[in-house]
């Protein structure tokens, strides 16, 4: 679904988004206002190690889950 304007169609936490082609997951996190040290990222059901977030590029059609710790029992 790559469009002629070079943007990518992805899903983040169940919501559809468009992002610039060629960005890394760390850049995506920054664009969402998130601090990578405080979250964990799953891409297409696979964990993306935090150490590689700045290297792995977002691909068209990627499905991301980005989670953090919240209160719970």
């Amino acid at each position, binding site marked *: 679904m790559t469009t002629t304007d070079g943007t990518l169609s992805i899903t*983040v*936490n*169940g*919501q559809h988004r468009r992002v610039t082609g060629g960005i890394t997951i760390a850049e995506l996190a920054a664009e*969402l*206002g*998130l601090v990578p040290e*405080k*979250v*964990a*990222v*799953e891409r297409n*059901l696979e*964990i*993306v*190690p*935090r150490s590689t977030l700045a290297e792995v590029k977002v691909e068209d059609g990627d499905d991301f*889950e*980005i*989670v*953090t*710790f*919240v*209160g*719970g*029992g």
Partner: protein
Amino acid sequence: MNAMNEIEASDSWSVAGQSFTSRLIVGTGKYKSFEQNAAAVEASGAEIVTVAVRRVNVSDPNQPLLTDFIDPKRYTYLPNTAGCFTAEDAIRTLRLAREAGGWELVKLEVLGEAKTLYPDMRETLKATEVLVAEGFKPMVYCVDDPIAAKQLEEAGAVAIMPLGAPIGSGLGIQNRVTIRLIVEGAGVPVLVDAGVGTASDAAVAMELGCDGVLMNTAIAEAKDPIMMARAMKAAVESGRLAYRAGRMGQRRYADPSSPLAGLI
């Protein structure tokens, strides 16, 4: 060292190689505010807190985070799988938790149904096996069944955490016999997880020989959660001391405490 110091000093417990002094583990859900939550954790004396793993709020990323109030460097975060109804979902959640936190000690719970939040032991056992193979150290929420507890231990659970009563019910320890049987048969720590409503319930669990108690709602839904947290600290310590001291035998009838000899 005097006798009192000796009593205090000799009673730490350990799970998966980590040693702790407090035998009370508290949850971090249902509080009115992060401030109240942090104050209750402080008052409880807990060294381990349970936390949930949830999607970040993408629409408002600047909301305050639990980690800003309860420091993960000071407290051991025990990520849970609350809300997971299959082994697959629980495993997926804990893989994310391990990446977010960087540690292997986790709380596994796989629920069977929403009404009772009773554990699904078939899925729980399956998830335990997979997690252990992946290097996790799961403390496992389970039914108060001595056989299921044994099976979990054989599968590699680092702690057995039977329910005292349904999650959030506050009904207290419903079956003292099964909890005691689990304690007697276990080679890993046993903690009552769920069902505690008030201080005496926590003391009962400890008097049965449990290594600890995990609770959330009993503190968070008290009228004064901070005072209740302090009460639970005292109850867990009292119950533990009573267990170690060895209680008196029970009699069917009275036995006078004052000497019968020398009566006027």
